[in-house]
């Protein structure tokens, strides 16, 4: 299974490029390790550890969401390829066993892909910075524990979602309430929500409470095991094909789209109908809205929970919305296989452009609603006009950047180090500029607005260049997986 997962990833961008992803992580962490002393002047090590654990928790959440798709997961993800993991069709293996196999495989694969090279990056920096190797080892253990809890929670939640949407909403709400309660009242402690952090704070360099560390570690393993067993028991086994009657809707979709007659209108109608029939819209909605809620919670937590006075305002949120929305483009590329397009006079750039348009149709409304709501809640309606412009330009910029760099295979190409580096630089720079400028709005309104206008102008020009570049970059690419 591990070999298949590795070959699947490396088949998209080449073995050496995929292998360079952990090297990229290693280098980034090594570089961060070298600058840690400087950063510790303003932010205490405990805060760094907290954010690192939040990152590991989120990483686990994103890895464990495969249960959401049940049998569809196997069909869609593996398409026409036969993988050992799809053996329930051919061998006396139950779906439950298969899903447990996926869980165990992903635990190993994604720890090796990210956490191991990150740890090695710190180890490499240790002789230069005087880090304790024992502390680094304990950090690795703590991060793995947090990752496991996040992954198990996500695995369970996604399985519950398939069983019963209300139960899923209740479960998600309960987790959100726990984190909100921590932010508002400090209860429950963050160590109780993420026992891996508790373990971290009990061992070097933060503490020396071996007994507490032991209990926190045991708690992590226990919680992860319970959630995994529950998910294992609840996995929806849908071996029988549930054939459903459908009314022919494509012609009516085609008629309703207000575009000139032609290929674009046809592709758009099909994409929208695919979204409706596949049921992906609801999942995409969660994939978009949950990070927005998490973002709101994090900023609120920083302001009120950690009492760090940072000037988050509607313009900051608007920029973030644009950056978060890009995940939706990835979802659009995973709705269906696109191989049949290779039989028709259609090119990859034509489909990419339609997906950018579909992305905008899906996200602009939700993003605008979020920005308006944040403006009203923060009492910053005077910033709304600027926030909406920022939101729209960043959304467009990010989706065009992603489409340019990854074409129709976003998920795969973002594991290609050269693509990831370009993506990181081109998204991080404007994001950083907009964040800093948004914080300056109250202090120096005119200069901040001029600065934001310049950044947005640069982004708009880049967007146009990249949008045009999609044609030359992807024109000769095959639709095949």
């Amino acid at each position: 299974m591990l070999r298949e997962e590795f070959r699947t990833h490396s088949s998209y961008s080449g073995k050496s490029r995929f292998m360079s992803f952990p090297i990229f992580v290693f280098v980034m962490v090594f570089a961060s390790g070298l600058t840690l002393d400087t950063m510790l002047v303003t932010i205490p090590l405990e805060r760094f550890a907290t954010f690192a654990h939040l990152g590991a928790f989120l990483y686990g959440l994103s890895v464990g969401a495969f249960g959401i798709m049940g049998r569809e997961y196997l069909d869609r993800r593996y398409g026409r390829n036969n993988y050992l993991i799809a053996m329930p069709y051919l061998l006396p293996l139950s779906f439950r066993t298969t899903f447990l196999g996926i869980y165990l495989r992903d635990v190993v694969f994604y720890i090796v892909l990210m956490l191991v090279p990150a740890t090695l990056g710190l180890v490499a920096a240790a002789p230069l910075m005087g880090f304790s190797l024992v502390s680094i080892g304990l950090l690795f253990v703590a991060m793995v524990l947090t990752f496991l809890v996040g992954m198990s929670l996500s695995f369970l939640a996604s399985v519950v979602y398939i069983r019963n949407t209300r139960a899923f909403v209740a479960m998600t709400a309960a987790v959100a309430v726990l984190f909100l309660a921590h932010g508002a009242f400090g209860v429950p402690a963050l160590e109780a929500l993420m026992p891996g952090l508790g373990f971290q704070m009990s061992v070097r360099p933060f503490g020396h409470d071996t007994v507490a560390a032991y209990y926190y570690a045991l708690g992590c393993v226990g919680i992860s095991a319970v959630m995994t067993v529950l998910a294992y028991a609840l996995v929806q086994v849908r071996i029988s094909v549930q054939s459903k009657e459908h009314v022919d809707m494509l012609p009516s979709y085609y008629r309703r789209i207000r575009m000139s007659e032609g290929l674009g209108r046809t592709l758009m109608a099909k994409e929208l109908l695919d979204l409706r029939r596949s049921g992906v819209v609801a999942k995409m909605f969660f994939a978009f809205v949950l990070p927005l809620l998490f973002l709101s919670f994090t900023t609120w937590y920083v302001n009120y929970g950690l009492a760090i006075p940072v000037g988050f305002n509607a313009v900051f949120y608007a920029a973030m919305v644009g950056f978060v929305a890009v995940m939706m483009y990835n979802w659009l590329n995973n709705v269906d296989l696109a191989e049949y397009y290779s039989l028709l006079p259609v090119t990859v750039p034509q489909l990419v452009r339609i997906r950018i348009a579909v992305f905008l149709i899906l996200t602009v409304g939700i993003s605008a609603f979020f920005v308006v709501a944040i403006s009203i809640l923060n009492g910053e309606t005077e910033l709304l006009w600027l926030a909406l412009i920022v939101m729209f330009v960043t959304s467009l910029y990010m989706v065009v950047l992603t489409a340019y760099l990854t074409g129709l295979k976003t998920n795969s190409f973002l594991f290609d180090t050269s693509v990831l580096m370009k993506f990181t630089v081109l998204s991080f720079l404007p994001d950083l500029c907009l964040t800093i400028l948004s914080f300056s709005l109250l202090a120096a309104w005119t200069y901040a607005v001029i600065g934001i206008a310049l950044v947005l102008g640069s982004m708009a020009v880049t967007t146009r260049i990249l949008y045009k570049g999609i044609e030359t970059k992807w024109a000769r690419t095959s639709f095949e997986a």
Partner: protein
Amino acid sequence: MAVIEGRDIVKVYGSMKALDRVSLTVEAGDFYGFFGPNGAGKTTLIRILTGQLMPTSGTASVLGVDVVKEPMKAKELIGIVPEVESPPTYLTAYEYLYFVGKVRKVDRLEDRIGRWLDFFDLEEKKGTICKDMSKGMRQKLMLASAFLHDPKLLFLDEPFINLDPIYQRTLRDYLEEFVAKGGTVFMASHILEISERLCNKLSIVNLGRVVAQGQIDELLKDGENLERLFLRSVGIKASGGDAPRRTSSS
């Protein structure tokens, strides 16, 4: 008049040479068979000739269009049935044909869709989306979508696979009529009995190289059928019994 021209086509995947200087000419009105063992390079050549894949070197044209330089123009003119039936997951048969018709700008679309749904008996499962169809139904749909715009040239990769004997017969009759009216078919198939009845010319490839090429009746030796010709060409000795043996020369 040549409708397909391939010259010295080479395709290399990594360290493997899938096609090694393959050349062929197909005239208008030919029913051209392209045969070879598994992995010989048949699907690769079809994908190159239909503009789905770029060759490593060599030239290819269909209906006078250079498929390397203008693959989209070539695709507008031809009909393609791929080796693996893979229609879009969430469309019904009608919707897929409607989609293909709109992409190809087919006139009198409703009439044509009706004709092919009826021809392949797809009306029966009208409300079923492709992911819930049987393999046979999906294969019929892929065939219908390739025929929808009345192309003069068809590329068929294992067209009879998954079809029941009734529709194998129906398709065979249709293809014979299509060629009789001046159409051209380029077909890869492992079903040699049907192919022998349909094809007038062939190429046999083995390990990426053409090992036999020409008029079928000229290539067949006394009393030989296509199966024997195929086995002889790829270096398998038919012992007269059921189990063919690879000859030492291979």
